[in-house]
């Protein structure tokens, strides 16, 4: 499984595509600091209005801010609203 992932990453590099695209990495899109759209399979680990911790499979992303809210959460991704002050990758 690891070999397959390495090979896919190599192909990605060869075609100058973003790393992790073929191996199921998550894509995070930010609209200023007011909204974050997470595209890919993810699950919530911790949820409050100041901190949202999301598991993306390979890594964990933590959003810090004020009035944070999980606008949508489904199989394909999630959408976070509010004022984002800090993003941390663990």
């Amino acid at each position, binding site marked *: 499984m690891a070999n397959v992932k390495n090979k896919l990453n190599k192909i990605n590099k060869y075609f100058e595509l973003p790393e992790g695209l073929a191996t199921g990495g998550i894509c995070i899109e930010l609209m200023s600091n007011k909204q974050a759209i997470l595209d890919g399979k993810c*699950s*919530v680990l911790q*949820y*409050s*209005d100041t901190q949202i911790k999301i598991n993306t499979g390979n890594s964990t992303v933590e959003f810090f801010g004020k009035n944070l809210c999980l606008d*949508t*959460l*489904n*199989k394909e991704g*999630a959408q976070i609203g509010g004022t984002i002050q800090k993003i941390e990758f663990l």
Partner: protein
Amino acid sequence: MFMLKSFRYITGYVKFSGKGTFPERFLNLCANNNILVWSPKVKYGEISGFMHINDYKNIRKIAKKSCMRLKIEKRRGAPFLINRYKKRYGIPIGFALFFFVLVYLSGFCLNITVTGDVVKTEKVENALADSGIYLGRRISDIDSDVARQRFLIKNKDFSYAAINIKGSHIAVELVKTDKKKMKNTSKFPCNVTAKTAGEILKIKAYEGKISVKIGEAVAPGDLLVSGVIELTDKTTKFVHAEAEVIALTRHKLEVFAPFKSKQRLKEGKKISRSVLKIANINIPLFLGEVKKPYETKKSVKKYKIGSCEMPLKIIKVDFTKVKYKKVLLNKNSAKILAKQKMNELKKKKLKNSVKSSQKGKFRVTKKGVFYSKVYFCEENIAKSKKILK
């Protein structure tokens, strides 16, 4: 966002809250089971958010897995509203009736507007009604082309008509015939003949050959100006003879004034009766009837919304009671009345062409007085008569 909110309102949703140990797990399980939770809030192990009603019914297993105890806080949306009023049968029946009436009435002509160089008058309305365009007629029964042609055939005063049907509204555009132009364009060959007998005083011929002389006496139908002209090369030319022929004419007028007559007097008592007219249906707004004899005065009140006339009218008729009084006249009074009648008749028939008159003659009979008088007038006696029929 508005569309999304509207969709959620139509399908119905609930605001829920729950207590438990794993609220985050509850959210993850909802996402994995395709259950949409929007605006979730988690505080001190308590979760609240919104969910579709159908999803809330299937959430029991998920709540049990994540050790959550859920309860509904608010129910919102159309399904709950309908459920609340489902026993009130009047509301759906009213809605159904409203749409039925709306659809049914939109199939009828409810408004007619007349544009162009004419004003919508009763005469135009009647002419349109004769051609098949009237308020209250089914739109599907109106063939605008046929109605247009029928209208133009029946009404020679109009040279152009367009009938446009827009829903339940009919727009009619009319253009009047220019009679002067018509006269000029149809210059058929004709003679000028005498309308009445008289003595010629003046002739003004615009076209044609004069056949009479000044001072000559003519009988009705005599040729005054000929439309047939003989040219120098012995050929004949037909023209539209036009002339103004002033002649001294004689008119004998006679009137009759009876000794016994009925005089019409107004009693002064007024009775008003109103009728509500919706399209072409008349609804009387009164009871009983008015006894004859009476004089009537009709007034129509129309209702408008902006510039659009509503198919609603209130026709008010004022009845003024009258009574007949028998009047007996003596000889002198009858003569005065006869003179008055003669003056009225003179004004009506001879207008201002009277130059002189003979003294009037009275003839007394058993029933009344006859009064006759001869008037001499100066008038145009020219009359066009077609040469070829």
